[in-house]
């Protein structure tokens, strides 16, 4: 129907299409054909359009409410999964959705329908034996796996006699445990090695959901898949997932390690000619035009808008305090200063941090909240005393601004021990850029700029650690926790961050001078100036050339790099505060953001001098959209 979201009506149509299902049978008993009812719903809502105004496939708030009620009904009944009956009862209880309105129009009596739905039946589950865990002779990596992880691991391989852990994989920057494991049957025969990921249950379940919805149908024939439902024991906060390799995997080596073995020049060619075409067919290659304000796709990469201190109990917010609620008036955000009182309404909890007594709130509801704009952190909530849960909607909450985003970014930069003044309008660099614009002055107007780009299915966390090298050098991707429909170039901007951190920075030291050297050599790929070669570093940077080719293919307009530089600015700013990244790389990330800002400046060629004012050129360049800004790629 080209609606690009899941609403109550879609859930309902799905239920109606179940042959012999409860609602389809009942509707026929009442004298209607299911097709007639579906048609009535369709007429009421009409067909969507080609143009996309948002990315992804969100659930409507009402669908979330209905699913929440259905989930409660299932839990009351002692089941983990929602049945059709729960869904129908939830829909009737909620009462305001389109299908229920249509029922009223058709004269279907709701209390009677509820009675009829209740007169149907259900089933149950089984216990578990012990699975032995052993380590392979060549097991590499930190052998410490804690009790809880072992518990989940055993659950995952229920039915096998034992499993042999082959090696630990590096994985991403998160705390997930990634292992290559071989399950062994009761009779001693071995099954194919799989990659196991164990992480926080919310993250794992979300990844499984995304895999089902976004990834499953789009994978190349030979690659890693999630074939089974995730294992999420009720007694643990952890859960596990298995990636099965359809063609079998020998060593399970990730690209962060394999890159050095196969050679960096080959890595570039491999990214461009193996990885991109293999996944590109259903992913980045399926681009559709997408016009969006940069904040819609990139705000979530930055620190929260503010950190608030919860007002002491009993204290009222003063008259005239800023009220933040949907719809947000963006210009009002900019006036917020330290010590102001801010009232949040209709935010929901997207992260709980008991050690710091803090919660992170995002505007709106639903699991997509993690990636939404308008994140606020609130301190001073005693999570041991008050019970809060993820996704909980906070109707109203007032707090005093403890720190704004600008201050948070500034302190991130101070943590890098800059050898320059981080509050200045420009920062020092190496020739040919004597000075580069300070990104801290530009990120706000960049967030408000409009991007003329494209939307496609993306991995959402593309880096060398999530790419495995399979037999015959075939590419395997893992970690689909962030897979979604989003800005096509996001994946490639993430990839550039990975190439710089995992490869180029490995050949130099951690100082600012080293970071500047890498930036200058990186910039040389964009052309426009003469430089002296730096053989070892240039070799480590060589995959950038292939990356640039991929970027040119995926740009909405191959002659306008604004789209890419904008994406890269935010990806680089995010990496500035990645604690798992070495300090040298984080220094480079800040310089890279500055370089992108210079590229986004309106005067081509005159990168990085005082011609960029704090609120001057950049705003104009982005307001005028695609014209003029961003240097063309070197031919």
């Amino acid at each position, binding site marked *: 129907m080209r609606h690009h979201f899941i*609403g*109550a*009506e879609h859930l309902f149509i799905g239920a109606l299409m179940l042959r012999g299902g409860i609602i389809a049978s009942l509707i026929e008993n009442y004298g209607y054909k299911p097709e007639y009812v579906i048609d009535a719903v369709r007429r009421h809502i009409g067909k969507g359009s080609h143009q996309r*105004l948002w990315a992804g496939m969100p659930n409507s708030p009402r*669908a979330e*409410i209905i699913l929440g009620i259905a989930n409660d009904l299932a839990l009351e009944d002692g089941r983990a999964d929602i049945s059709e009956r729960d869904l129908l009862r939830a829909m009737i209880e909620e009462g305001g959705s*389109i299908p229920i309105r249509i029922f009223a129009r058709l004269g279907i009596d709701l209390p009677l329908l509820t009675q009829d739905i209740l007169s149907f039946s259900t089933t149950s589950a089984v216990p578990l034996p012990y699975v032995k865990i052993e380590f392979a002779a060549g097991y590499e990596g930190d052998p410490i796996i804690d009790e809880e992880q072992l518990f989940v691991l055993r659950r995952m391989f229920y039915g096998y006699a034992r499993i042999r852990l082959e090696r630990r994989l590096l994985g991403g920057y998160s705390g997930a445990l990634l292992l290559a494991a071989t399950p062994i049957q009761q009779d001693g025969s071995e099954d194919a090695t799989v990659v196991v990921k164990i992480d926080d249950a919310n993250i794992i379940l979300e990844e499984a959901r995304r895999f089902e919805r976004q990834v499953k149908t789009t994978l190349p024939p030979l690659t890693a898949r999630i074939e089974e439902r995730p294992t999420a024991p009720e007694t643990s906060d952890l859960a596990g997932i298995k990636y099965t390799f359809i063609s079998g995997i020998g060593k399970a080596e990730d690209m962060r390690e394999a890159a050095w073995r196969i050679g960096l020049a080959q890595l570039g060619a491999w990214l461009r000619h193996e990885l991109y075409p293999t996944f590109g067919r259903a992913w980045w290659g399926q681009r559709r035009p997408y016009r969006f304000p940069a904040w819609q796709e990139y705000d979530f990469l930055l620190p929260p808008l503010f950190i608030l201190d919860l007002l002491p109990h009993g204290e009222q917010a003063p008259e005239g305090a800023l*009220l933040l609620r949907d719809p947000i*008036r963006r210009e009002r955000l900019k006036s917020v200063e330290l010590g102001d009182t801010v009232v949040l*309404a209709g935010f929901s909890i997207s992260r709980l941090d008991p050690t710091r007594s803090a919660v992170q709130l995002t505007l709106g509801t639903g699991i997509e909240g993690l990636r939404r704009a308008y994140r606020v952190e609130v301190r001073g909530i005693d999570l041991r005393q008050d019970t809060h849960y993820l996704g909980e909607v906070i109707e109203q909450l007032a707090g005093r601004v403890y720190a704004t985003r600008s201050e948070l970014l500034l302190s991130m930069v101070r943590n890098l021990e800059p050898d320059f003044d981080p509050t200045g309008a420009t920062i020092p660099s190496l020739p040919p850029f004597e000075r580069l614009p300070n990104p801290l002055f530009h990120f706000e107007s960049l967030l408000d700029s409009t991007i003329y780009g494209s939307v496609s299915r993306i991995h959402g966390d593309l880096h060398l650690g999530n790419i495995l090298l399979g037999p015959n050098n075939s590419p395997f991707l893992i970690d689909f926790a962030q897979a979604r429909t989003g800005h096509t170039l996001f994946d490639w901007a993430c990839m550039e961050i990975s190439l710089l951190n995992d490869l180029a920075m490995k050949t130099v030291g951690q100082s600012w001078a080293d970071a500047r050297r890498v930036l200058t050599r990186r910039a040389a790929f964009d052309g426009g100036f003469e430089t002296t070669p730096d053989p070892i570093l240039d070799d480590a940077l060589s995959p950038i050339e292939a990356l640039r080719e991929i970027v040119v293919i995926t740009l909405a307009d191959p002659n306008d790099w604004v789209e890419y530089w904008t994406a890269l600015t935010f990806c680089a700013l995010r990496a500035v505060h990645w604690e798992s990244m070495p300090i040298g790389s984080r220094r480079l990330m800040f310089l890279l953001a500055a370089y992108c800002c210079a590229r986004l400046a309106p005067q081509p060629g005159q990168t990085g001098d005082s011609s960029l004012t704090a609120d001057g050129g950049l705003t104009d360049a982005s307001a005028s959209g695609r014209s003029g800004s961003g240097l063309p790629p070197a031919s």
Partner: protein
Amino acid sequence: MKPAVTLMFMSGVEDGKSLTLLAESGDGTLRDGEWVLTVGRQDDRDIPLQRDSFISREHARLTLRGDRWWLEDLKSRNGSYVELDGEEIRVQEAVALHEEQLFKIGRTWLRIQK
């Protein structure tokens, strides 16, 4: 006069979301005892409907006169409708809305909450 109103989305991607507008915090325009709310595609409208491609830039106007809401279409391309006895009626000039009555702006069904 400190009027306030809550609208609920009744269809589309934002189905089920409610939007509360308060004259006090600067929403809408108060003039001659009337409170006027604009509906349109841009986010500077009082009721921005950015996720519906059938919305015109300046699509419709909701006016509170006394205790009654009026819906007026501003010559939008795809029109505004009210639901009456299960039928969709296109709004030609300003029509009064009764409590909980559904109305459609572009492709999006809305209602004023009690």
